[in-house]
């Protein structure tokens, strides 16, 4: 029974991992940038939700669009005026740049919001579905639903809209995209904005179900890239499958040896990198395997 509960918990948190990883994945897939500041962007989204909930008394789920818009704007500006400048430089440069950006954001969050651990309580926090011994908190189910919906919305956007197709075209071949009248610099800024908006949504979800502080961003970034490697770069179904695989593995390991759940995630990462670097559903994009 404990095992079944662990699997259910893993699936629920896996949906959240998927939405978190999708923003990271699209930035990596389209621009070949590993955004080490992704976790900090998520935390900023969490603070947007937290501030709106505590000061205006809004339900956390209603703040999701606000968090998404705020983060989109931040992401667009960061890419347009900062990250775009080193896009053509080496992999070292982009990794270090996003790490530096992450340090700045962490420090800013610490100064603005303090290091206190924050959390939101809503009237329905304790409500749960019970099936025999199995317990499914409603709020976690809602988070799972929003996460999966936002991930699928991104997929529809990429497949069905002109802008989405332009993003995919740019990721395959920026030069050919330019010849077709697409401005890659603008596409990159929009893509980073979308990645950040997904981080904002994930942040709102973090605030809704758990506690957070400025320093937990690193752990979220780590999980994002584990999910991307498991699922495959740039793949939406891959992000969902990878998120659930990571969530279930972590919860199963934690139900046996609690202190080894992170090590299990990293072990899974290394096994996949070595045995199947394209992940479960990976396609090529920029991937240099």
């Amino acid at each position, binding site marked *: 029974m404990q095992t079944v509960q662990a699997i259910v918990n893993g699936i629920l948190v896996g949906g959240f991992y998927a939405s978190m990883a999708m923003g990271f994945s699209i930035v990596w897939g389209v621009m070949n940038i590993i955004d080490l500041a992704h976790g900090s962007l998520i935390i900023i989204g969490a603070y947007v939700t937290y501030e709106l909930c505590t000061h205006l008394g809004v339900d956390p789920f209603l703040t999701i669009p606000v968090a998404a818009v705020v983060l989109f704007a931040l992401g667009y500006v960061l890419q347009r005026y900062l990250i775009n400048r080193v896009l*053509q430089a080496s992999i070292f440069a982009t990794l270090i740049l996003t790490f530096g950006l992450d340090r700045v954001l*962490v420090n800013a969050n610490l*100064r603005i919001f303090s290091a206190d651990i924050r959390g939101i309580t809503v009237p329905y926090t304790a409500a749960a579905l019970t099936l025999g011994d199995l317990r499914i908190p409603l709020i976690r189910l809602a988070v799972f639903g929003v996460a999966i919906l936002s991930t699928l919305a991104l997929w529809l956007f990429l497949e069905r809209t002109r802008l989405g197709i332009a993003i995919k075209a740019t990721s395959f071949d920026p030069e050919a995209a330019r010849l077709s009248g697409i401005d890659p610099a603008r596409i990159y800024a929009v893509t980073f904005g979308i990645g950040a908006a997904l981080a904002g949504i994930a942040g709102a979800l973090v605030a809704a179900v758990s506690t957070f502080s400025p320093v937990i961003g690193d752990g979220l970034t780590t999980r994002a890239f584990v999910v991307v490697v498991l699922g495959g770069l740039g793949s939406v179904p891959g992000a969902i499958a990878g998120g659930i695989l990571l969530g279930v593995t972590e919860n199963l390991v934690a139900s046996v040896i609690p*202190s080894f759940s992170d090590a299990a995630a990293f072990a899974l990462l290394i096994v996949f990198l070595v045995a199947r670097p394209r992940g479960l559903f990976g396609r090529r994009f920029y991937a240099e*395997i």
Partner: protein
Amino acid sequence: MRRSSCSLPRLAIVCVVVVVVALAVLPRFTGVFVQATLADIFMVGTFAIALNLIAGYGGYPAFGNVVFFGLGAYATGVAQANLHLPFAAGCLAAVVLSTLVAVAVGPLFFRLRGHYFAIGTLGLNGAVAQLVTNLPLAGGAKGLSLPLPAGTPATIATFFYEVFLVVLVVALAAALWVDRGRLGYACRALRAGDDVAQSLGVDTLRTKVALWAMSAALTGLIGAVYAYSVNYIEPPDVFSLGLSVKAFVIMLLGGTASLLGPLVAAFFVEGAVTLTQHYFLNYDVGVLGLIVIAAVVFFPRGASAFVRDRFFARRSGTAR
């Protein structure tokens, strides 16, 4: 990018010898603070030189190279605190353990390239850090206390200053050996592509593993010296990615695959870090982040390339 240090002028070697001799006699004239700051610079400089072997010469962005620093620190920690062995034995254990790990995981990791390799090493660092955290022998999350070195604060500071200086010289010698020797030629062939290297008769996997093993051994060694010098280690401290990133910044500023660049850059970066921590209490992390961002935005190909292109353009020809 143009290769800059295929041949090292004799003048540069003379300069290095003069500087090393000057540094060796410096403790007679300076206090504990200067020695400790310089020892820090030697440490991150060595870290960057070691990282440069695999990342600069080899072309593999080993972002998680700090894993060897942590392994070295814990190898000497366990050897000295639990097994009551002397410091030298701890250093040996650190070098052996780091080298073994690099040789064991190298053949698997070198199937990856670029970001995937970088992420793989990050995963390795995370996994090892948590294993160590759960190892009762290593003190777990509470950390591990090492025996105190004998002597007064002044003599201890001088001792570690000298040890770090010796390790730095060893690292420079190793880098020189790679730069000038067979391995250096193999690396240059490797950076032109695995196929090119193979067609020239280079055993590509062995070359990469050898580079990473050397890098790991040196990184493990400074981890060991660091552990003994601070007397107390804990996983978040010695497996900190911040250290890897600092070394990357130093390498980037100094120029990848450059022999002396990392050493010069280490003085500037570590100096900036010390000043920042002194003057920007509570904002030091952010200010360091800004320095890192500025370094990348203004010198995406390294400060050394920038200086060379701007001031020595004629001599270095068409450096792209």
